[in-house]
């Protein structure tokens, strides 16, 4: 890893667009989709584009121990794409045999921190590459949080040696919904451990900001990209990755979003 660049999350629906990005700095693929890897993704790997498997179902924040089969798959996914690192979330997705269907926040308590540390250690023990952890966008909080998000993350990364996947849009969403200053929240995170950053779009609904990944990236998120870039270490990270997960716009619109992210971070355009 050298200086930061701009990338986009690889999805089958936009594979041709991603393939056409001459300056693509890196990409990311949903780790669970690598049970059946797409030839077009492997072609990117063969072109020398760094590919990061991004897990969404490991449930690192669950009280239950991580499923060894899911950990093994994540390790295989990393080997398959020759990944420089893999990433997952500070979240849980199932409990008591019930699947929630998406990422849920953990209570910011000592017990939840201990459960996370146990699960992250069980995962990194099987991985041949570093693991970066992403704090999620949460529409609600647990009633009895003992830590601020920044303190919780700092202790989690200190105890596990994991890196930080900083989702700038998640920071914006949570700060806006909690009535906090997003820049102050950003500054409370352990930014010296950033491996790369996510950027995504969202929209307001029922008076709350939803990090949908299916709407355009708002100007406020782009501004926060600029704030993040000023505060992150100058090198040793991959850069900014646009996440789009549906309602795919025409290639020209996606390209304009990538350019806007590059401009906000003062990095070279990749389109």
């Amino acid at each position, binding site marked *: 890893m050298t200086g930061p660049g701009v990338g986009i999350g690889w999805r089958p629906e936009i594979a041709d667009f991603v393939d056409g990005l001459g300056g693509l700095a890196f990409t990311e693929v949903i780790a669970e989709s690598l049970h059946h890897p797409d030839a077009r993704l492997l072609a990117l790997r063969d072109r020398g584009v760094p590919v990061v498997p991004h897990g969404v179902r490991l449930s690192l924040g669950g009280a239950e121990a991580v499923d060894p089969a899911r950990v093994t798959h994540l390790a295989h996914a990393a080997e398959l794409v020759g990944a420089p690192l893999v990433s997952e979330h500070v979240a849980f997705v199932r409990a008591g045999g019930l699947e929630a269907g998406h990422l849920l926040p953990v209570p910011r308590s000592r017990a939840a921190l201990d459960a996370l540390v146990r699960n992250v250690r069980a995962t990194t023990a099987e991985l041949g590459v570093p693991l970066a952890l992403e704090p999620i966008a949460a529409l609600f909080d647990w009633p009895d949080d003992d830590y601020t998000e920044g303190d919780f993350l700092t202790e989690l990364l200190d105890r596990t040696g994991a890196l930080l996947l900083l989702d700038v849009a998640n920071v914006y969403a949570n700060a806006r919904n909690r009535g906090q200053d997003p820049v102050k929240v950003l500054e409370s995170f352990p930014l010296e451990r950033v491996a790369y950053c996510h950027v995504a779009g969202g929209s307001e609904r029922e008076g*709350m900001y939803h990090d949908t990944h299916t709407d355009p990236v708002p100007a406020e998120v782009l501004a926060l990209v600029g704030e993040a870039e000023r505060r992150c270490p100058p090198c040793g990270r991959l850069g900014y990755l646009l996440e789009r997960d549906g309602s795919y716009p025409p290639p020209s619109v996606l390209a304009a979003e990538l350019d806007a992210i590059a401009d906000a971070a003062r990095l070279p355009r990749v389109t």
Partner: protein
Amino acid sequence: MEEFADLEARQEALVRALVGGAELPEGFDGATVGAASRALLRKRFGEVLHAWPALIAHRAEFLSWAEGRPPRGSLLDGWDFARAYRGVLSRDALAALALREALWRYDGVAARRRRLPAVRVFRRGVAVAGFGRARAWAR
């Protein structure tokens, strides 16, 4: 995992409230958890469309059907919904259901591929499957 028994119980109670229609555990904000629960439903419908693209016209019905019903994965969620709403499905959705049921045997628990050719009649047509292929004819 004795050490995390309390956390486990609290996480389970929250998930039951979010996707299973159970009562919200004490202390949570009903408005924000409700918003999260509805967001989970919308996301779930998006995933069901990957397995059942023909259900696109039935978003509102699906959201109301799925509320309080724990997710079983996009294939079975779409299947259970389509069976429950068979009487009001669009022609495309009916054809998709008949095609799938001509190819697969689903007893409400798990789906298995049929070994013998099968015919399924639906309100506006017929689906025929055999040797791993299926085709529907609709009026």
